[in-house]
């Protein structure tokens, strides 16, 4: 079963990989994606990104996404961590890990997990600009298309 976490604290990729693989030697490949805060949005410098979520539903949605990946691929482990609250440019927002016997499943599941997370987990981003203004991030049509390709 996937490990899911919604947290304000930073995550550490090496620590999470170690936890995922601890005590097992049947894993041949680990796919990983880390999403980070960029310093600009639409060409304008940002000073922070604030993530809001829907407590309760978020954890359910992440667990459901992990379960769906485990239904589609033979995974030997799966981790989904998403941060909430105020983050600054360069910080990690989201971590996806998928472990399998071979790389094909690990990498496909990693792509699937982040695509689905982008469109079916209740998080919302607000960008705070250097000029003091802020704005909610609009959903990207590309994200819907990316999720749709998994059928």
């Amino acid at each position, binding site marked *: 079963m996937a490990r899911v976490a919604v947290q304000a604290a930073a995550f550490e990729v090496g620590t999470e990989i170690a936890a995922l693989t601890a005590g097992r030697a049947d894993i041949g490949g680990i796919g990983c994606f880390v999403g980070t805060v960029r310093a600009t949005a639409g060409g304008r410098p940002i000073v922070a990104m604030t993530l809001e979520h*829907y407590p309760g*539903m978020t954890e359910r949605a992440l667990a459901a996404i992990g379960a769906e990946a485990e239904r589609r691929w033979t995974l030997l482990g799966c981790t989904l961590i*998403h941060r909430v609250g105020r983050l600054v440019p360069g910080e990690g927002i989201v971590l996806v890990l998928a472990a399998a016997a071979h790389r094909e499943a690990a990498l496909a599941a990693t792509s699937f997990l982040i695509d689905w997370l982008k469109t079916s987990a209740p998080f919302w981003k607000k960008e705070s600009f250097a000029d003091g203004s802020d704005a909610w991030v609009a959903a990207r049509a590309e994200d819907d298309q990316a999720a749709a390709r998994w059928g």
Partner: protein
Amino acid sequence: MITVEKPLRLLYFAWLRERLGRAEERVPLPPGVADVAGLRAWLQGRGDGFAAAFAPGMPVRCAVNQDFAGPSTPLRPGDEVAFFPPVTGG
């Protein structure tokens, strides 16, 4: 005997929360409202920020009891109903 129905628990997130000036409220299931589409229409009829936020075509999504819901998802007293913009996590 008078039956007291449990109210709906309404939740608002992101710009909906900001424009409506509230994160949460409890309202009795309005008479005649049977599904999400009906509730949206009722909320739009409240005027002020609600009329604009729930106007047809506004990109507002819904979850009922923490599952994504469509316009025809049925509502019952006591349901938790959340409205929010399209999600932008990840």
